[in-house]
């Protein structure tokens, strides 16, 4: 289990999202409020797009297996960057000898030459038994780039493979459809292998101009006997968003200002502030899309029935 964050909108200092609020993403690595019995200590990663940077279509990436709260480089960078799009992630792995804490397993995943990145909050139970059945659904050139051991990277490869051009920048609708198709493939492969236990798939994919996020679980509510993740998985994995003009601090409180049409949006596993009254909960079994357009941001939520 992990925590994810996506931002799209007006240029915003990264530190406002990672460090400054009382339930910031980095704080969620060691003190998540909406996860039971689990911490996210297996590394940090972020991908950011800044239109004023050199080659703005190429995002800036930073990933480290160290704890982000003690990462001084991250503190310095977060104070200097003010992107218009950010995807960030703190990774959690089960407390066993099976989890692999390694740079190659850190999110967001981004294969060089592609224009889409992915971060995932969730886990596909019994993934090892279905891994190789996914190969036939993944573009060979994409499959060759898989370096890590996580199911998240396979989901990423699967989504890229559903695009007309895995190396081009897809339109928002195409990216949303590719994500839903990837979930359908996962459902059919799970069925073929007789896998019918709860497997959350809160996915966030982005091109820097658009974000697609899902709040979804396969077979929610069913668990193997003696499951070590049970207490964490019993509630539907959370996802929230805040949308409006810009995210800033007023009278000591961080909040999204009013904006019509909206110009900025944050999507996060948990609200970035303990006061969640200005945040909206993404409905279970749904997909959210947001895209930067001239004059603001287009946004849509729809039921996800795959």
């Amino acid at each position, binding site marked *: 289990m992990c925590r994810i964050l996506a931002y799209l909108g007006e240029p915003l200092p990264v530190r406002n999202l990672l460090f400054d609020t009382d339930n910031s993403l980095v704080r969620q690595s060691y003190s998540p409020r909406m996860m*039971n019995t689990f911490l996210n200590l297996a590394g940090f990663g972020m991908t950011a797009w800044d239109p004023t940077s050199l080659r703005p279509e190429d995002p800036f990436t930073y990933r480290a297996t160290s704890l982000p709260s003690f990462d001084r480089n991250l503190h310095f960078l977060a104070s200097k960057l003010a992107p218009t799009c950010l995807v960030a992630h703190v990774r959690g792995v089960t407390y066993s000898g099976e989890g692999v804490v390694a740079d190659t397993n850190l999110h967001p995943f981004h294969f060089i030459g592609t224009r889409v990145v992915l971060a995932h909050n969730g886990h596909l139970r019994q993934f090892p038994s279905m891994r190789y059945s996914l190969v036939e659904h993944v573009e060979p050139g994409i499959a060759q780039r898989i370096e890590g051991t996580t199911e998240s990277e396979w989901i990423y490869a699967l989504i890229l493979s559903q695009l007309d051009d895995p190396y081009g920048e897809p339109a928002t609708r195409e990216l949303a459809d590719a994500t839903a198709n990837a979930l359908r493939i996962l459902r059919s492969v799970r069925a073929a292998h007789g896998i019918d236990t709860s497997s959350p798939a809160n996915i966030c994919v982005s091109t820097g101009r658009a974000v697609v996020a899902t709040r979804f679980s396969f*077979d*929610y*509510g*069913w*668990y193997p*006997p*003696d499951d070590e993740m*049970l*207490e964490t998985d*019993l*509630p*539907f994995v959370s996802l929230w968003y*805040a*949308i*409006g003009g810009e995210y800033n601090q007023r009278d000591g409180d961080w*909040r*999204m*200002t*009013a*904006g*019509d049409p909206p110009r900025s949006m944050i999507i996060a596993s948990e609200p970035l502030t303990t*006061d*969640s*009254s*200005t*945040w*909206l*909960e*993404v*409905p*279970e*079994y*749904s997909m959210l899309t947001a895209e930067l357009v001239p004059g603001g941001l287009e946004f849509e*939520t*729809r*039921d996800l029935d795959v």
Partner: protein
Amino acid sequence: MSDRETVDFLATIPLLEDQEEADLAELARVMRRRTVRDGEILWRQGDDAREVLFVVDGAVSISLQQPGDRTVEVGRAGPGEVLGEIALLDGQGHTMSARVTEAGTVLALARSDFAALLVGQHPTAFRLRRRLASLLTSRLRHQLGHLAVSLGGESARLPAEDAAPALVDLEQCPPPDSEYVRRMATFHDFDPLALWSFLTSGKYVRCPPGRTLVAEGTPSTAYSLTINGAVEKVLVRGDRRIRVGLAGPGMAFGYESLIDGRPSPVAAIARERAMLLILPRDVFDRLFYNEDAVSRVFLEVIQRDLLATLRQTLRPCARLAASV
């Protein structure tokens, strides 16, 4: 306001109906009488709850903070009404803000004194728990009514076979592993024997996804508790619908009309295949009105469910209607 007047006032409050005069006198003794000014903020949404308030006179506006710096008034409370009990019961922040719109008087009951009323297995505590269940059901219906109005249109007319009680022909199955059930947050901190007596009071069934288990606007015939899987609570109006709650493991549905005798305020439809514990009306009534350790567990489970469902219906996403 003399102690006598306070006792007389408390006796008129539905939440405290049926309480012995001696209990009301004790309550009056620990309550603090407070004058409130026009415009005074009693609490803001999200604030920690410290007390429950009984409005003696004056008026209070109840409002919901919305994203984009908007505030929406969702109701007004006047003499005899109770405020702040939800946050006090579930230990989370206040669900809404409360501001005085007409100067008056309130009686404040501190968290510890309120909690003391509910502990133990004496008749007073059982009566109060049942009254709280009725009050929370009423609040839930009020909130669901607001959501239904926002959807517009008429309540969906379900086919006759869907509107009929759908629980009888579900496949029965053995009870779940007790260790699994005890790991659910819903059942933490209950006496194991009393909990097991509750969990063996009904029958266990399996249900396929998509099955309508309770139809909106018809009386429910049973209390259902999700053991595995998930059941959606939805309002349907024409081609629009709102999911107002998701009953995953440890969450219940179908009991509102068993509490207040009115039709079910929402439909319950299996979203995932599910394993359910079904308590028919007679079993529900026995557990609801008995006053023993098993009933205490049952009333606590219902209270937790009502509180969680109320919070679900208040979350802004519930207003996001999706086409069916």
